[in-house]
């Protein structure tokens, strides 16, 4: 195990952040470098697009197209009763795709329930990604194999895990950065606060990506925060905040890549707010007409992440008709395969209920397992 010295973040030259009586006491740092952009950072349609990496952009594009199709397919599966519930990321594909592609293999992703697409782009089999939402076992994959933490339902509770894992990796001297996803609603939870604070104090290599899609189920952003922007929350933790157009895949990728790099080099955490929109209802069970109008949805459809990138890339000759066709065909193949495999009824072993509660099981659980086995046997005999 490599040695590392943990020091609390002190800017070079800054006085130790200790109690010294005023007037010699000063705030530790100038907040200016922490303040986020005054408007969401964009690449597509701006001069910054001159610097686009064609290979990366093609990859982003292909994944966006696949992601859009994946969302549609998963939503369709709910109608066919093949998924218990699906929280769609339609409209948020740029965040999902960029979050996955910005990671090195050894990095960790901490997704929420809405982020199965990011997991799929990272390499997870869609069937495994959807295991939870299918009503099958809670986690459909081995998190260590993919370095994808379990899809987290209790909001913001995965953020301290990301901090702890990143911190542990750093203590071990491993080059691992954690990327944690959370929604605009999730930023109101105490765990958001505690995680960001721990990350900053420990200078943990972790990046927080807030997908601000404007709603927490029915609750609009204005009822969630009075902050100038969610990225501004970074200031209070002493970490940089970045504000980015979450439908601009190139911009999200660039901002996240810079934050990851900063964390990797020991610069500590960054908070990134990606401004985006949830085109579908919260889940298939939700009725979005109760709390928002069509006009708003339409305005956002006109700022579609797939189209934005497609337009830019075709204009710049990075993508042609063949490329588009190929991407769409690949997406269709994925969808057909997913549909077919999700039609197969999963086979679960009921005694699995007892198999993993403890490493060292208890006599009580063993009794209960025996009871269930007896019931199942009796059922079988009928």
């Amino acid at each position, binding site marked *: 195990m490599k040695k590392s010295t943990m020091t609390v973040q002190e800017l070079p030259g800054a006085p130790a952040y200790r109690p010294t009586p005023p007037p010699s006491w000063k705030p530790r740092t100038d907040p200016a470098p922490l303040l986020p952009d005054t408007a969401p950072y964009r690449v597509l349609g701006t001069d910054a697009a001159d610097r686009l990496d064609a290979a990366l952009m093609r990859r982003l594009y292909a994944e966006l197209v696949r992601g859009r199709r994946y969302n549609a397919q998963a939503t369709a599966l709910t109608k066919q009763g093949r998924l*218990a*519930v699906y929280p769609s990321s339609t409209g948020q594909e740029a965040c999902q795709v960029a979050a996955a592609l910005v990671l090195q293999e050894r990095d960790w992703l901490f997704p929420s329930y809405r982020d199965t697409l990011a997991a799929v782009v990272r390499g997870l089999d869609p069937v495994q990604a959807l295991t*939870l*939402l*299918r*009503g*099958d*076992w*809670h986690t459909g994959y081995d998190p260590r194999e993919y370095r994808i933490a379990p899809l987290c*339902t*209790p*909001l913001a509770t995965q953020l301290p895990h990301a901090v702890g894992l990143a911190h542990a990796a750093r203590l071990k001297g491993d080059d691992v950065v954690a990327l944690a996803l959370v929604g605009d*609603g*999730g930023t*109101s*939870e*105490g*765990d958001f606060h505690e995680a960001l604070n721990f990350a900053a104090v420990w200078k943990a290599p972790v990046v927080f990506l807030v997908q601000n899609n404007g709603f*927490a*189920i*029915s*609750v609009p952003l204005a*009822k*969630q*925060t009075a902050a100038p922007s969610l990225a501004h929350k970074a200031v209070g933790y002493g970490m940089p905040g970045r504000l980015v157009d979450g439908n601009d895949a190139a911009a999200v990728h660039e901002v996240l890549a810079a934050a990851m790099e900063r964390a990797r080099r020991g610069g500590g955490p960054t908070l990134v707010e990606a401004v985006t929109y949830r085109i579908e209802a919260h889940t298939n069970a939700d*009725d979005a007409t*109760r*709390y928002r109008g069509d006009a708003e949805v339409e305005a956002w459809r006109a700022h579609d992440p797939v189209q934005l990138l497609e337009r830019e890339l075709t204009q710049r000759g990075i993508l042609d008709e063949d490329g588009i066709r190929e991407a769409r065909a690949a997406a269709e193949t994925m969808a057909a395969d997913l549909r077919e495999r999700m039609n197969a009824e*999963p086979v*679960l072993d*009921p005694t*699995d*209920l*007892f198999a993993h*509660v403890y490493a060292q099981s*208890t006599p*009580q*659980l063993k009794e*209960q397992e025996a009871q*269930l086995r007896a*019931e199942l046997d009796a059922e079988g005999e009928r």
Partner: protein
Amino acid sequence: MTTVARKPVATKPASMAQALGRALRDAMAEDPTVHVMGEDVGALGGVFRVTDGLVKEFGEDRCTDTPLAEAGILGAAVGMAMYGLRPVVEMQFDAFAYPAFEQLISHVSRMRNRTRGALPMPLVIRVPYGGGIGGVEHHSDSSEAYYMATPGLHVVMPATVEDAYGLLRAAIASDDPVVFLEPKRLYWSKADWSPEAPTAVEPIGRAVVRRSGSSATLITYGPSLPVCMEAAEAARAEGWDLEVVDLRSLVPFDDETVAASVRRTGRAVVVHESTGFGGPGGEIAARVTERCFHHLEAPVLRVAGFDIPYPPPMLERHHLPGVDRVLDAVARLQWEAGS
């Protein structure tokens, strides 16, 4: 105790969710200090639509979509109660009440005692709870053991449409904090009931015999009541005449009704969906035994969920106590031994 009396009107089928919504509405109409607050309780009407229409009728100040933070919601409600309001807080699902436990245990349950009664906490925490609805992880917990182990709280669980209305009105009228557990899988259960002639509001703390019988007593509440009623019907074929007691509240606990029943029948099974170990059943079995020892022909048995985290939808039927397990337990009540 508040009693609501209106002219009798013809009843028609209403769901438990509707009865709960009506109880909120009537309480708000009657008492301007009643405030409903929580996640999505406004325009959406709550994810189970229990608060549907309240924001329209009473405005955002009385029915408030809060920021998404359970400790903040409950903590703010504590402050509102300190100023004389009667907040009715909705926790969106059972498992999402956990972030608020610090406020619940350290303040909601203790503020009155801490201040010798100067700061009562007349608030209600509504928790859609329990499983059987095919919910994914964290949407099906039975968390009543935590609440009942916290002195200072009342813990109430309706099992019928009528009780949903009556008990929620009583909970809101109570000057004590009430954790109000709404069995999710009974939300759409229906009964003939009229919002125009709402049931008299019971004081909290009275169990009720839902079915009289002489061979053994099933002690249950909330989502397990229908299971027990069905089991009691099925038991007739086996020659058992089962009594079914619906507790309606775990705190206060109605020792009188329960013990009277068990003394009569001499045998008892406690049935609940919550995990067995450390769950309510242990307390109930122990108190019944303390009170009825010499009337008992067999130990009080328990039928409960397994001692495991709530299973995924595809396996939940194996976890939930069903009619068969109840009948199995009844069969183990040592019938050879006595009466």
